[in-house]
């Protein structure tokens, strides 16, 4: 693939200029300007987001007061074990969370871009169904984990493209739609004849590529990947991920990458947030997290997966299992499994705090600057530009 900057729309030209806001599908978005400053380069702004499963007395908090932010064309990685709330958070933001999920608080704003009228921002939490449908797929698309269950088994693959294009690009003719679908498939390295197949006739890797092609059909600004490669073998995994990032380099969409494989994220993401039992426990850039984790859970996660490159390390894993969200431990959620737990951890929940002088946050009593607390060496490394760690140097990025 060439490296010149290209939009998906350039592949098969259509009337809409590349940066046009989605207006053709369901009418214009009512611009909701927030009292705070404009979003600028920020494409997704989520604050104080909380999600419950269930209602009344049976409610269980699955996502507790989480903030995430994503800038245009950047990659945000969300890591955590099953049940950490990572998928719940992202689906809830896009209002695709299934029953019995309920959003209990917070806000989520998505920046559609600016034009002559100003900045267009959609308030996802308060949007109507019509407004949501306007941004769905044209601005935000999703790649689900299992492509076999995500594609309608009784229709041909090409028909899925047809439906999306028919709904969102009404001016396209049948031939134009077919051509575009073929072009999209070519982008992910598949032949046009795959369009006439049924999902069960394709291999896992082919299906996942089709999911990616589908996700890019309308040239969205944000693509959400929900464990896109977990169901594949390792070799195919690598292929697909590298293709994915080539595409991203070409078209410049932002990405949210959800996975439990932290080592994958350290290579791919710009920023990583780590979630545990519904709470955000650490946020840092990928390099910082990989070289200098601060939260014991992050450290444990890193030690659970063999790194793709570099020397072999001993795997340690994290003893125990994630807590039942209905019966969370007192104090810090992680303390029963934490090798560094102190007495304070049992009683008080540590807040998420910014580490001074950096752009990273962590929720751990080890890092609140209490002189009486000795921070373990492995949690006080310093990230540098080089791959080797030199504690004597200042933190530089």
């Amino acid at each position: 693939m060439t490296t010149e900057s290209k939009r998906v729309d350039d592949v098969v030209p259509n009337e809409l200029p590349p940066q046009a806001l989605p207006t053709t599908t369901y009418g214009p978005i009512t611009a909701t300007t927030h009292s705070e400053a404009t979003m600028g380069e920020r494409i997704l702004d989520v604050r104080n987001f909380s999600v419950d499963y269930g209602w009344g007395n049976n409610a269980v908090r699955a996502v507790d007061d989480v903030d995430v932010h994503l800038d245009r064309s950047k990659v945000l990685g969300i890591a955590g074990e099953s049940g950490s709330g990572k998928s719940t958070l992202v689906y809830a933001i896009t209002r695709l969370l299934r029953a019995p999920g309920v959003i209990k608080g917070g806000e989520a704003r998505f920046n559609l871009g600016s034009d002559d009228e100003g900045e267009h921002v959609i308030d996802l939490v308060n949007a109507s169904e019509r407004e949501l449908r306007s941004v769905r797929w044209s601005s935000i698309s999703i790649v689900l984990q299992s492509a076999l269950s995500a594609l309608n088994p009784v229709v041909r693959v090409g028909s899925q493209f047809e439906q999306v294009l028919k709904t969102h690009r009404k001016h396209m003719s049948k031939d134009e739609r077919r051509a575009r679908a073929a072009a999209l498939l070519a982008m992910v390295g598949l032949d046009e004849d795959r369009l006439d197949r049924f999902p069960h006739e394709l291999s896992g890797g082919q299906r996942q590529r089709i999911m990616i092609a589908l996700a890019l059909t309308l040239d969205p600004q944000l693509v959400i990947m929900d464990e896109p490669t977990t169901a594949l073998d390792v070799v195919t995994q690598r292929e697909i991920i590298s293709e994915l990032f080539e595409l991203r380099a070409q078209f410049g969409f932002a990405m949210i990458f959800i996975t439990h494989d932290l080592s994958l994220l350290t290579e791919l993401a710009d920023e990583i947030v780590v979630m545990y039992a519904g709470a955000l426990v650490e946020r840092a850039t990928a390099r910082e997290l990989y070289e200098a984790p601060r939260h014991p859970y992050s450290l444990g996660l890193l030690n659970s997966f063999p790194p793709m490159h570099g020397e072999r390390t001993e795997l340690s894993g994290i003893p125990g299992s994630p807590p039942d969200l209905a019966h969370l431990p007192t104090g810090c959620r992680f303390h029963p499994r934490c090798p560094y737990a102190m007495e304070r951890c049992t009683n008080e929940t540590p807040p998420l705090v910014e580490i001074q002088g950096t752009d990273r946050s962590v929720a751990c009593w080890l890092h609140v600057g209490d002189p009486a607390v000795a921070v373990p060496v492995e949690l006080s490394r310093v990230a540098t530009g080089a791959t080797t760690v030199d504690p004597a140097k200042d933190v530089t990025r």
Partner: protein
Amino acid sequence: MRLIGRRLALYALTFWVAITVNFLLPHLMPGNPIQTMIGKLTGTVTPAEIRSIRLAFGGGLNQSLLSQYFTYIGQLLHGNLGFSFTNSKNVSSILVQYVPWTICLIGVATFISFLIGTVTGALLGWTRGSRLDSLIPTATFFQATPYFFLASVMLLFFASKLGWFPPQDGYNIYALNLHPGWTWEFVLSALRYGQLPLISIVLSSVAGWMLGMRNMMVTMVAEDFVLMSIAMGLPKRKVIWAAARNAVLPSIANLSLAIGLVVSGALLVELVFNYPGVGDLLLNAISSEDYPLIQGIFLVITLAVLAANLLADLVYLLLDPRTRTEVAP
């Protein structure tokens, strides 16, 4: 295509079993019903007719069971189903007169019932927790009610008491100069008289389709591809259609079971309304022990049911592409 071949073979085998059962039963029953019957008839029917009846059971008494069996099959292949002494006609000619009524009634009823049932079921499955859910216990009740009971009740209220529909027969048999045939008056009369039986059958069978479809729809709505459709911003009706298209498959696959019940029920409804179909014929044959006629009706019903099954299998093959290729890489 291989699949169709296998189904065809199965139905052929089933039909053969039906024929054999038909043959063996009267020969195996204690008290030799054939002898008794022929003994009773001697004197009231011509010898030629007696011979015809005998042939329907496989020939003379002095032959072995096996040779009687082959004679029987031979007769069947020639279309000779025997002689009905209660009607003084060949069974085949009687059936030709009555079978079209039954097939029309059941065919139209099943079609309407399937349509209403699956559409309602799809909507019920999609809109869970709405007021429509109160339909479910009602539907269950209708499903549990025997066809003929519901027909009797409808006859009582809508025909006898309220007089909205004609209570009996397939067309106005009392009208002068009105004979079966493709005349406009006849068709109108037949349609008018067929309403109540049709409504009765539809009401009894619709619940089954509806509940089955609802259950499948609920399962489908929880599937990932439905969420994908919503995430893709497709309009709601397209999402429902995608889910329903998948949910309807088991209903078609289970058609064999449903058809059996509908046919049995419809025969009894014909009884209640004195509809000139096979049902009434069967009852009279039973009470007068007209065995050739009973056998003939059984074979024809079996053939019709098997044909319907084959049709359903074909439709299923068309609708579910997963059955066509056996390969999953």
